[in-house]
């Protein structure tokens, strides 16, 4: 086993980890602002994939070109779901909240099966088909572009939260919604914004993945478990935490699977999670 092979797996791990991170950023945003666990988050990713797929299948538009539109669509969907459903259960018992988002998950999967059939689909020839090779290492261009897109989107979310008034208002609501309301921040708007942004992040991740990952109605379930781990690992509500946790989990999964046994790659990830929760219950970057 050569150092080169190890470097290759390490970088592959980082590439997939960056995509995991973007999915988790959306989830952690919603949780951070509202304390609601969104079980339908994987379905946002699935819908993003299908948006990219149909753009390609019907109009020959590459998933990367339709990316802004996918983001907008998912943003609108997230905000609308908040207005129509989530708003009514903000103060309901936790079980109602779980059932509501869990129900949405089942609804979206069922709809996708009904409307688009349970078949596996994929975007045939994306503009990003090809390979990046250097120093004896090689990576698929779709994977590299997806990782880059994920970093850029995560950075944009980060910038928005840190450097805009609206972002600051969102963070203020997350920190203390009563105090924020007293300062004149409309909590309802902030919640809708969080849902919109959260869904858009997952949608963008889906569109980026669609250039190389098969698309099917249950695809969300594949990614959601990792996203949950990242949110807890990085610290509930912490965007930066989710980002670093994404990279960490990607590397542990790929390198660990390579060095040990791929059958146990999720065991490694979940053990890491248990370890962090044990030593640092608030997560890597969470506030105690």
């Amino acid at each position: 086993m050569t150092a080169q092979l190890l470097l290759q797996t390490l970088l592959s791990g980082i590439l997939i980890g960056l995509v995991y991170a973007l999915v988790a950023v959306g989830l952690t945003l919603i949780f951070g602002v509202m304390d609601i666990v969104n079980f339908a988050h994987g379905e946002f990713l699935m819908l993003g994939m299908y948006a990219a797929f149909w753009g390609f299948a019907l109009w020959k538009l590459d998933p990367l070109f339709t990316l802004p539109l996918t983001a907008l669509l998912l943003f609108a969907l997230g905000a609308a779901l908040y207005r129509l459903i989530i708003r009514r259960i903000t103060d309901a018992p936790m079980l109602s909240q779980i059932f509501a988002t869990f129900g949405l998950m089942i609804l979206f999967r069922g709809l996708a099966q009904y409307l688009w059939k349970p078949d596996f689909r994929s975007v045939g020839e994306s503009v990003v088909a090809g390979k990046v090779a250097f120093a004896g290492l090689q990576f698929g261009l779709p994977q590299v572009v997806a990782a880059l897109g994920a970093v850029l989107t995560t950075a944009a979310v980060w910038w928005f939260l840190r450097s805009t008034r609206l972002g600051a208002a969102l963070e203020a609501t997350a920190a203390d919604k009563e105090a924020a309301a007293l300062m004149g921040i409309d909590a309802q708007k902030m919640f809708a914004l969080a849902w919109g942004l959260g869904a858009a992040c997952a949608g963008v991740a889906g569109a980026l993945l669609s250039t190389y990952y098969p698309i099917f109605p249950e695809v969300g379930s594949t990614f959601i478990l990792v996203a949950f781990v990242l949110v807890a690992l990085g610290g509930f509500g912490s965007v930066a935490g989710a980002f670093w946790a994404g990279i960490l989990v990607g590397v542990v999964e790929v390198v660990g699977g390579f060095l040990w046994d791929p059958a146990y790659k999720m065991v490694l990830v979940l053990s890491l999670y248990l370890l962090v929760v044990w030593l640092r219950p608030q997560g890597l970057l969470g506030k105690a």
Partner: protein
Amino acid sequence: MNPSRRPTYLAAALVALGLCLPAAAQEEIKIGVIYPLTGAAASTGLELKNAAQLAADLINGTDRSLNLPLAGAGGLPKLKGAKLKLVFADHQGSPQVGATEAERLITQEKVAALSGCYFSSVTTTASQTAERYGVPFLNGESSSPQLTQRGFKWFFRTTPHDELFVQNAFEFLRDLEKKKGLKPRRIAILAENTEFGTGAAKLQEKYAKEGGYEIVEKVLYPPKSTQLTSEVQKLKAARPDIVMQSSYLGDAILSMKTYKELGFVPTALVANNAGFNDSEFLKTMGKDGDFVISREVWALDLAARKPVIAKANELLRARHQVDFNGNSARAFTAIFALAEAINRAGSTKPEDIQKALRETNIPADQLIMPWGGIQFDETGQNRKGAGIIIQVQGGQKVTVWPFDLAGKDVIWPFPSWDKR
């Protein structure tokens, strides 16, 4: 006629008709056929049903142009030309429903024998019911090896089971060595870690050892993984000649994309059916799916060497606008095997049919399958069953083994990704 006497005549006529009924029933031999006609596998179930019905109609009809057992006999000659009647039942994909439907067919429809059920899980329960009642059960298309390892007396299976299919892959390798001088030795196994993949991997290890092959790597992975990079890196590091892979569709696609991404090129990729044989696989992979080798139970291009396949396929196309596939071809064959045995028994008594089934010996040229014939061993398994090996060439699946049935020569080795 005096109108007042009419009821009497009517009654007499009815009595006469009633007396005739048992005699009329004698002219029909009922076979219960259980398939998933509703639910997730309904479309497959319908294909199976259509194929089975075509087989029965051929036996009941008078078209003698097909060289299949009893085709064109106009019924079963040794049972005074009694017609074959298939009574279809729907198991909905559920083992419980399969068992109750089997019971209903036996006790209420009074079928002479049962066939079905496609799903190994349902065949298991339905055949248990048949065993309890002592009614012959002939399965044509369930491939779980356990089915014929239960010591049942009334269960017969025409299709080869999964273990035989795995064995075929090794026979194919041996033939490559004998007839083409190719000597692949290093085998790596990649399999999903549920029952299908782990079961296949175990068998592959067993046959590799027996054949003197070296297993250089064995990678089991969780199905529906987000990435298969570590798996493929492990394979790549082991430098195998052959990768034997058992994957469902999503993982089959993802693994192929990862092979390409990481530039992994074994001498050959020998897949174990499943995802690789799904039509969606080739649709998705396009020309990147080329050169994949897989096992299959049947292929339409066998018609080039077996004209009876082309004829039967024309008939099916004329009726249902679809071609035969591995499942429907086996369902079709099961009805012929069953009818042939019942006819030879010359009776509908379960014991007679059971005895006739045990003595079945249908030659290869009377089948639309690539088998050496039908002859059951003491467990009820057809000992002459065999699979075929196909390869994707130019986006088409072509038969490459057994060599005497092959449509095209196998392309070996796998060309590297940048030379395609």
